[in-house]
């Protein structure tokens, strides 16, 4: 285990924006004028709030249809999972898997990982700190790929809209889904990964 000192013990704060090491008495970074925080304010409470809001919106985003398509006189409203099944049945198992990962696996992983990080950070747990730190960076990295479904619905609606063949319109499910992506991203951003390591010195 490395014995690198931690900034808070030395009376230092790292600027989030420009990375400069500043003395802790500064309220703002002397170089870029961003606010300095030894730890993000109310990190755990904010993260829980965004996470719970995202979880609530996740239900209608899966239950409600995301798109209504009417082609050749046959209209249907499809949900996200319905879209996955259709790709699977049509033989495009790779695209089915891609959408499943982006719309189901990624948000679910984010919910579980962030909840686990929040609980263990609150308890100042020393368990698997390195792995938890890596898990946080992983969640940060994958988060925005969930926007995939929103892009697909937008493109299909723009192409089929007002077309003689039929119409395609976005439905309420995609609104909730877009908000879930934004809320989970805000949740991940408000979590302070430095909390994982607090208590490591003892």
């Amino acid at each position, binding site marked *: 285990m490395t014995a690198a000192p931690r900034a808070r013990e030395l009376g230092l704060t790292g600027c989030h924006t420009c990375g400069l090491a500043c003395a802790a008495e500064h309220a703002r970074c002397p170089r870029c004028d961003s606010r300095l925080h030894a730890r993000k304010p109310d990190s755990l409470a904010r993260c829980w709030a965004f996470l719970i809001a995202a979880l609530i919106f996740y239900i209608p985003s899966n239950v409600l249809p995301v798109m209504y398509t009417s082609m050749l006189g046959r209209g249907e409203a499809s949900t996200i999972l319905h879209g996955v099944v259709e790709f699977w049945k049509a033989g495009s198992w790779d695209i089915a898997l891609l959408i499943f990962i982006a719309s189901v696996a990624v948000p679910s992983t984010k919910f579980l990982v962030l909840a686990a990080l929040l609980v263990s950070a609150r308890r100042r747990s020393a368990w698997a700190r390195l792995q938890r730190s890596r898990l946080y960076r992983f969640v940060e990295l994958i988060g925005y790929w969930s926007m995939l479904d929103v892009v697909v619905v937008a493109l299909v609606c723009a*192409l089929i809209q007002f077309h003689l063949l039929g119409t395609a319109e976005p439905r309420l499910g995609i609104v909730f889904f877009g908000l879930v992506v934004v809320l989970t991203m805000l949740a991940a951003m408000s979590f302070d990964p430095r909390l994982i390591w607090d208590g490591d010195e003892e």
Partner: protein
Amino acid sequence: MTYPELVICEYCDSVWCRSELGDHEIARCGRCRAVLYRASRADIDQLLALTLAAAIVFVIANASPVIRIAVSGMHNEANLLQSIAALSHGSGLIVGLVAAATLFVVPLLQIVLLGWVLVFARARRRAPGFAFAMRWLHRIRPWSMTEVFLLGVLVAIVKLSGMLSVIAGPGAWATAILTVLITLIAQHDVRTLWEPLSARVAVELRE
């Protein structure tokens, strides 16, 4: 008091001393293994060239259709902005705004702000509003989703190809190039632009 010779890990708050890195080396935190900084300092000429290329490609990507469909003599096409507009009907307005921000406004701001800072840096000057531009570049970065749009174009092509004839338009190719350019730009450590100009000149003279 500030300590430019120290680096503090954003992920675990460990304090390390900066040291010179060899080419393509990456300094990682000994406690949590996060990346601390990279050897690739922002090469201003190269970065400016990439940013200008990105600006041109961005215009093409947004002005030309990304997907064209055709069936029994009828055809239709859509570009990025038309897709966002199609999404924004009625209750879709909120998600339309999110899409407009992440697929259009944020990438545009990234190109404009970076270009602004770099044009002045090339003349060895601090751009007016330098700190403002750099702060916002950092803040909006997580919300830039051009690569997600590219993947979405691919999925939409496969989805529609079952019932129609679908081809990727010039906008799709431009988006692919834009994604590559953004990835290349992201490999430069833009934060090194914060260093005082005198320090940058000293490094250039030594090289």
